[in-house]
């Protein structure tokens, strides 16, 4: 149960107190979710690794991947992780609401830029015959990379909802804690992306 919604249970901390004392203690439960998500990603990574080379005569990573686009996507996501971090610092030190919204919007735009590039990449792959049903390798690829993309999509939706909440509910402690969870989620996606460009793209180029 969310400690924020159950002020009567003995271990709970009221949100206003929590954000000043130690917000990282309150979002421990979210860490548990992220680690279970990490294991889910791990399984899909393992499938990809065993499927490298199973191209069944179809196009492989050498023909399909675009180095320039990969680099641009990486930079966008990495920078969005910084802007989410700046928003976190603003929240923790209770600086202006306008500055907070500004950095959240920048993060959202960077995330959407990343998604646009990724979709453009997938379309390019499909043009070269790289569709999920073509081979085991491509099924594994489309099981992993769009899974990360889906997480980014939900992160963007989460940001939009949060921006609406800041306007309707104000930047109260509940909304602040929601944002801190979102920031953790966003940094976590950045970490997964490091695994994706190292294993899926670079590993694919070498072994595919």
């Amino acid at each position, binding site marked *: 149960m969310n400690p924020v919604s159950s002020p009567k249970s003995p271990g709970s901390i009221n949100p206003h107190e929590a954000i000043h004392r130690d917000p990282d203690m309150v979002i*421990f439960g979210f860490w548990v979710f992220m680690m279970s998500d990490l294991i889910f990603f791990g399984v899909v990574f393992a499938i990809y690794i065993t499927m490298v080379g199973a191209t069944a005569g179809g196009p492989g990573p050498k023909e399909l991947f675009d180095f320039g686009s990969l680099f641009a996507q990486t930079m966008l996501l990495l920078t969005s992780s910084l802007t989410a971090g700046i928003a976190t610092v603003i929240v923790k030190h209770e600086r202006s609401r306008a500055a907070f919204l500004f950095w959240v919007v920048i993060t959202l735009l960077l995330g959407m830029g990343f998604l646009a590039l990724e979709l453009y990449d997938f379309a390019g792959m499909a043009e070269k015959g790289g569709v999920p049903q073509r081979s085991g390798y491509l099924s594994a690829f489309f099981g992993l990379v769009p899974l990360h993309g889906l997480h980014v999509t939900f992160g963007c939706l989460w940001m939009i909802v949060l921006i609406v909440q800041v306007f309707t509910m104000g930047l109260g402690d509940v909304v602040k804690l929601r944002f801190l969870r979102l920031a953790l989620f966003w940094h976590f996606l950045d970490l997964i992306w490091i695994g994706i460009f190292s294993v899926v793209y670079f590993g694919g180029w070498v072994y595919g």
Partner: protein
Amino acid sequence: MAKEPTFAQHLRLYITGYILSIVLTLAAFAAVLTIGRDNKSVLILVALLGVAQLVVQLKYFLNVTTQRDRRDNLALILFSSLILLIIVLGTVWIMGNLAVRMHTTM
């Protein structure tokens, strides 16, 4: 509990993490560009840079430390990493072994 950093110190933490991440990412991309996309040894370098970046981001972005009051997070991450290691290495080991016995190439 550790003393809370000031606004500027806090901000500097994230910017330091970002600069380190950018340097490590650029190094990985540069390695693949210069050593080549077919040379197997490049992956060792990429893996080392990836692990370094993991540590940097955990420290600067996710604020995971060995401080006493943050041990829960660290224990959770280490336990999850163990499960992850068993799943991934186990899968690669078993499936690789199977491929060799079936005389198929991986």
